[in-house]
């Protein structure tokens, strides 16, 4: 198959899969087989696209022309490839995990759950492969809408109020800021097609106007969770853990930072922004978000909430790296999208396993749990080390490039922020690991073992992936390097 049909397949496979899942709703085993089959097929399709992108091609699919010059179209470039690869690959693992979690906790509405999940993946593929801002925006909004039933899955008051914040912040920010940003871009540049070097170069916008437009984009892309539009992310934690794991550690939030990087590289143009100095304010906001979110994470006793704020902070690493506007840091941003995804999904998997096996949700309840759930907590420890950035775990690589990028650009305050936040990362993750393995179990805890096998298998797999990631980092590095314009 050539590139175009493969892109169509990547979009259609999860959509058709959703229909099959819905049709098989009455037979749970068949339904789960449909989920796994769809996930595997999607990953195969994405893998088939990889060699083309690595060879420097840009497979494209022109779909519909909505208005003259304004079309729905798809084109895959290195960054999108990386994102699609991570999201589709982790969907397989997450599906295995979901089956264990949803059955282990006897959750209601499981068919709706799997259908929405497949649709969310279809939207994510659309985000990853969008050829222009309009297509990206469309898929981005679709992703918000199809994940909403997942966030409000439990249907109780907490889920509803979480869902309210989720939809309110994401939809509100995108309509209030992203939409005008898009229309303003069209008015200034006359096109919305992503192109290397940016499209605003010839528009002759003043530095202040460019900064304003950039601000509209950065705060309009609510999914990137830059403070103060981060509130939806902790609110989304009311969802079942597999949702938090894949969507709010991988697909949805990464769609946000992916869009940020994409807009900076392909709409504004790195050199253009650097020359105008219009992005100078962005590292400040991102740096503030990193530190503030880390401090909130440190003070949160609820495990998922701590992970959520850790995600907020890690997302801003990506934004910060992209905002430095040097090739190395752009590549670091791309790489961190992948590295954080693998590590954070492991942590969420572990949190869900703890909830399923022990019914515990708070950090303070975890004393000695490592003895009962050694696999889970070992995986948790690996994920945490990766996020702190200790070699050889995945996070080390991207953090290293970030430090290097900041140093090469001479951004010393950024170096300070990165160092400080590394300490904070350690401060909010390591006590959990310490308590789990070194403290004695509390009196009166009901005895329990590991979570169901599919869950443990999934989290062990991703933990192992964290560990071996740097040794197989060739492909992500090549893709990230191609994006940053580095020689491979």
């Amino acid at each position, binding site marked *: 198959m050539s590139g175009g049909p493969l892109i169509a397949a990547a979009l259609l496979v999860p959509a058709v899969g959703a229909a099959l899942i819905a049709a098989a709703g009455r037979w749970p085993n068949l339904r789960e087989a449909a989920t796994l089959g769809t996930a595997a097929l999607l990953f195969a399709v994405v893998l088939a696209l990889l060699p083309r992108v690595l060879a420097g091609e840009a497979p494209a699919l022109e779909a*519909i022309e*909505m*208005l003259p010059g304004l079309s*729905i179209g798809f084109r895959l470039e290195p960054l999108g490839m990386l994102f699609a690869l991570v999201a589709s690959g982790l969907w397989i693992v997450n599906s295995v995990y979901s089956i264990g979690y949803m059955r282990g906790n006897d959750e209601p509405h499981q068919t709706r759950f799997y259908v929405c999940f497949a649709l969310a993946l279809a939207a994510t593929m659309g985000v990853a492969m969008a050829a222009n801002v*309009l297509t990206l*925006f*469309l898929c981005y*909004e*679709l992703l918000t809408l199809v994940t909403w039933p997942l966030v*409000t899955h439990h249907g109780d008051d907490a889920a*509803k109020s979480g*869902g*309210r914040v989720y939809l*309110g912040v994401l*939809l*509100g920010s995108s*309509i*209030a800021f992203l*939409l*005008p940003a898009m*229309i*303003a871009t*069209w*008015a200034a540049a006359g096109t919305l097609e992503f192109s290397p070097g940016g499209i605003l170069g010839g528009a002759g916008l003043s530095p202040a106007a460019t900064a304003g437009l950039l601000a509209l984009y950065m705060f309009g892309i609510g999914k990137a969770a830059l403070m103060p539009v981060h509130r939806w992310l902790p609110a989304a934690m009311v969802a079942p853990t597999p949702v938090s794991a894949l969507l709010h550690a991988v697909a949805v939030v990464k769609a946000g930072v992916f869009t940020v990087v994409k807009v900076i590289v392909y709409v504004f143009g790195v050199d253009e922004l650097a020359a105008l100095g219009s992005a100078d304010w962005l590292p400040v906001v991102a740096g503030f978000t990193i530190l503030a979110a880390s401090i909130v994470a440190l003070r949160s006793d609820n495990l998922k909430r701590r992970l959520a704020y850790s995600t907020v902070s890690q997302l801003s690493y990506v934004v910060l790296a992209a905002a430095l506007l040097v090739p190395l840091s752009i590549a670091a941003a791309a790489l961190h999208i992948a590295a954080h995804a693998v590590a954070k999904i492991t942590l969420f998997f572990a949190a869900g396993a703890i909830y399923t096996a022990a019914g515990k949700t708070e950090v303070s309840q975890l004393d000695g749990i490592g003895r009962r759930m050694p696999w889970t907590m070992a995986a948790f420890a690996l994920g945490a080390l990766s996020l702190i950035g200790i070699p050889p775990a995945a996070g080390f690589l991207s953090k290293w490039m970030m430090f290097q990028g900041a140093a090469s650009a001479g951004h010393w305050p950024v170096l300070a922020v990165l160092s400080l936040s590394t300490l904070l990362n350690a401060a909010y993750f390591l006590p959990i690991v310490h308590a789990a393995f070194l403290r004695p179990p509390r009196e009166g805890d009901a005895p329990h073992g590991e979570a169901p096998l599919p869950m443990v298998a999934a989290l062990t797999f991703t933990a192992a992936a964290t560990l071996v990631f740097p040794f197989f980092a060739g492909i992500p590095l090549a893709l990230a390097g191609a994006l940053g314009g580095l020689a491979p």
Partner: protein
Amino acid sequence: MIFEHLPALEVAVPLVAAPVTLLLRRAAAAWAVTVAACVFSFVAALLLAAAVAAQGPISYALGSWPPPWGIEYRVDALSAFVLVLVSGMATAVALFAWRSAAAELPREQLYLFYTMYCLCVAGLLGMTITGDAFNLFVFMEIASLSSYVLIALGRDRRALLASYQYLILGTIGATFYVIGVGMLYLATGTLNIADLAARLPQVADTRPVLAALAFVTVGVSLKLALFPLHLWLPNAYAYAPSAVTAFLAATATKVSVYVLLRFYFTVFGARLVVEELPVEEVLLVLSLVAIATASLVALWQADLKRLFAYSSVAQIGYITLGISMASHAGLTAAVAHLFNHGITKGAIFLLLGGVALRTGRVGFDRVRGLGQAMPLTSLGIVIAGLSLIGIPGTAGFISKWYLVLGAIEAGRWWLAAFIVATSLIAVAYVWRFVEAAYLAPAGAGTPERGEAPRPMLVTAWILVGACIWFGFDTSFSAEGARRAATLMLGGAP
């Protein structure tokens, strides 16, 4: 050949269908005749639109009396576009009415409903197609009188009062219009629109012509419910039978907007209206106030029909806002929004008609938990609501796009911000429905699980589908609007 006479048949068929339904007296037969007439008009309108796109405006001399002496029917890019909207919505609502009107009206009055419906359709189509200013007045009266009756047929006794309010204000509007036309006749000695356009420049700055412009503006603004002349609209929409609300919301105000466009850009000409008089500024201010206040008032309504009625006032504000820009993008936005808002509101009111059938009325207390009880209906309202907000991928986005573009092109950034900010109010009132239907537990007024009768649901969903379809395929809606805008600014009638 029959094709030559299509412009006349476009109006004549529904007009003749009206007495036929009266003679038939059987509801089923009356319905069948109505649907047949509407379908005929719709097909004829599509053929006319295709012909206009291919070979330019069509002029038809009624009774072979050549204009300007006889009455001329004239189909150009703008009127063809509106004809398609009106006849298309008439067809959809006629199909919907089969079950909806039967449930809401006394059996013995049903055939009268169809008689009035045919008259109203004929009146609106006539207003659109005619090229004669006085003939337009006649059709305006046909459409208005029949719509007063249609509104008064509502089950609620307050429908009578609403109809009476509309009658008074509508009559004042029509009177103002005819006074304006009378002055134009005095000044130029002609009633043919093209002829008026040709003769007006010689007398453009005289007082009677300016007075005529003022009278026509106020008269038509009453009919199109421009703030603050909108007071008849919320009650009329709220208490009319569901099918009537959907039809009027989708077409009646839109045809009045068409008349305003026709007078501003064909009869008086952009030069007089835009450059010499402060019409633009007045329209701009009124539009802004309409959008802001009506959106906010909509937010506080306890009844969904009233909520969306006020939303209509706000959306009409967006249309007149586009007109006030008097630029290509602005006029494109206005004409495109005419169409997009027509199908969107049509879809919403049809779906609400289904809800009303199951619950009696459509207060917020009756739609609690509706997402469970009527899943397809609720989903339809949400999708049409997204189109109302202007989310990409829906029809409403296309018109918002042109509107914001028009504002930015004019260098009015504050206006772009205003449009976006008021869209957020639309988010809020659509959200109120989501909150009630999906997040609130079922209350005492919530119906048992079950959808509206299938014919109603299917027709409504065809329109919901259209809301999405026209968000992607704009070859008719935006392209047609662009052509109409070019026509209006080019001066050629």
